[in-house]
């Protein structure tokens, strides 16, 4: 249990001399509080596993420091860091029973037998492994094996943090959902700091209080799921989170107006001080754009198809050359190809070189 501080932490597999752009993890400084549930979210190769391995000590950083409760632990080995980690593929010790597997991390640290038994029993109960405690671990299914791996990660009560590296990859979708809720419940029960790496936004958004979105070795935004949804700090966050992702189109922005494809949209904030020469884009989530009948005051668009997701319908439309997704309001029936797009001005954001610009009120 600890607060974790990352201070100017960076890593390159090619050593410190490598070009800054080639770093697998570009310098990052952030603080994770004790007992929080964090998710590192991003596509493959974005550096999230590197960051995790830096924290657990499997990889030594090229630069920067990691502090647990203010103590610099960067030079310490994995064993001395007091960290638990669960890997993508189940790791079980073949010759041991389920119970012995769960007890292994405690036994190695010389915890008294009575304490081990109590803790193993508790974890086994929480993970529904209690009936299997005396079975050989090799004979179990992949799901059960991964549960054992999770259990070994959670069995120590004194760890600084429990790290999960895409732990549900091998699990069936049905069980995945169950295990995720279970993890969430375990987080509440055990009061452990948990850091969860995933490329699945649903997993990240349901598990974590704070989601850290990574892209190309950089942390592009860290915030609650609602913040990521409503106010993406980077166009990458916009289209990576949400399904369909945020619409991002080039535009000319002046004052409280944005011009897209010759049409003017009102903005709720004023953007006078945009950096000169920057690539200006407007971003708006499909949930905040409605398809309507064509009208002179609406941005005109061509409907290409309508996706019915059951609860909600999205139209895929084309505005000039740009592709757009927009909500089809309940009761609205699409006729013909042309339509108008109605924007909710309070949810239209302006991006300069992919970064969110906070307008003036």
């Amino acid at each position, binding site marked *: 249990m600890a607060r974790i501080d990352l201070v100017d932490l960076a890593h390159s597999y090619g050593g410190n001399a490598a070009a800054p752009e080639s770093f697998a993890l570009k310098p990052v400084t952030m603080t994770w509080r004790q007992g929080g549930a964090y998710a590192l979210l991003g596509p493959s190769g974005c550096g999230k596993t590197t960051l995790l391995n830096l924290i*657990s000590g*499997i990889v030594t950083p090229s630069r920067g420091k990691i502090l647990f409760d203010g103590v610099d632990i960067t030079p310490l*080995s*994995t*064993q001395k860091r007091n*960290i*638990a*980690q669960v*890997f*993508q*593929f189940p*790791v079980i*010790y*073949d*010759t*041991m029973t389920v119970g012995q597997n769960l007890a*292994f*991390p405690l036994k*190695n*640290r010389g915890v008294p037998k009575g304490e081990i038994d109590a803790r193993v029993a508790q974890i086994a109960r929480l993970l529904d492994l209690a009936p299997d405690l005396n079975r050989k671990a*090799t*004979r*179990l*299914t*992949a*799901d059960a094996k991964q549960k054992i*791996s999770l259990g*070994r990660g959670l069995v120590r009560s004194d760890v600084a943090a429990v790290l999960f590296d895409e732990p549900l990859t091998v699990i*069936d979708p049905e069980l995945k959902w169950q295990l995720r809720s279970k993890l969430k419940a375990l987080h509440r029960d055990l009061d452990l700091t948990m850091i969860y790496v995933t490329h699945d936004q649903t997993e990240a958004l349901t598990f974590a209080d704070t989601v850290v979105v990574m892209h190309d070795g950089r942390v592009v935004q860290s915030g609650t799921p609602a913040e990521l949804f409503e106010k993406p700090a980077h166009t990458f966050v916009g289209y990576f989170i949400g399904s369909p992702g945020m619409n991002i189109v080039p535009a000319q922005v002046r004052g409280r107006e944005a011009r897209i494809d010759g049409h003017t949209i009102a903005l709720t904030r004023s953007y006078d001080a945009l950096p000169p020469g920057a690539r200006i884009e407007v971003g708006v989530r499909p949930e905040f754009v409605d398809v309507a009948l064509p009208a002179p005051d609406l941005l005109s668009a061509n409907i290409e198809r309508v996706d019915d997701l059951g609860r909600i319908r999205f139209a895929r439309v084309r505005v000039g050359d740009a592709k757009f997704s927009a909500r089809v309001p309940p009761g609205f029936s699409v006729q013909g190809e042309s339509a108008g797009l109605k924007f909710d001005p309070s949810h239209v954001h302006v991006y300069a070189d992919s970064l969110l610009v906070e307008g003036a009120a």
Partner: protein
Amino acid sequence: MDKTINQKAWFLVLPVFLVVAFSAVLPLMTVVNYSMQDTFGNNQFFWNGVGWFKELLDPTTDLGGRFLASLWRNLFFSAVILAIEVPLGIVVALSMPRQGFSVAVCLVILALPLLIPWNVVGTIWQIFGRPDIGLLGYVLNSLGLNYNYVSNDLDAWATVIVMDVWHWTSLVALLCYAGLKSIPDAYYQAAQIDGASRWAVFKAIQLPKMNRVLLIAVLLRFMDSFMIYTEPFVVTGGGPGNSTTFVSIELVKIALGQFDLGKAAALSLVYNLIIIIVCWIFYTVMTNAGVERRVVVDKKGVK
């Protein structure tokens, strides 16, 4: 469905049948024939029924005494070299580098003894151990040890065992190394995080993951050492006395030294039978170990 009936296909099997008949079945039957008869040369044979087999298994007779003595000697030899080569092979494999240029160097060095013809290995050690001109023998004697594999039973045994260890530990090491290489990194990382000591990593991860290749290594080394002939024959010729006369050496002595074809045939049949039985036991054990794993995979598939 209509099947084309064409019995001419049997002709395609014929070449194989003939080759196997001439290379295996006929010689084996000749041996079975000899084992029931006695001969005094001149191509004259006398029927002896199962007489040789009875004698072979009766330690009070000359033949039985020699066979059983060489059999126990051979089993003891196999046990000793397994007890040395398997742990040593594991240690060598564990201390080998895991990546980089040095891996190739280590593999080549390890493979060298395996590439040397057996009688050359015998000759190398025969000369190496000679007290007058051999480096090993000369050095040991000048250190005050009275080492002479020609006259001393213990020295002869030590030489034959060290030679076999030198020749074959590489095989065990290479097999173990292959087994070790197949362990994913995640296992080592997990063990690190679980705070496992070096010994715990070996016991909980490396040894269990190596058990298949170890079984193969034990099988190969047992069969090979049980059939050993060339190297001890070249070094000690089975001596001093009969102290390093293993089963195959005894067999050759009877068959070619004394020209007792009947006795030799009976002995070789029993020898063959022992080898087949041991092979079968190993095969069963190994396939059963595999079945256990397959059941788990099937369960996964059904899910």
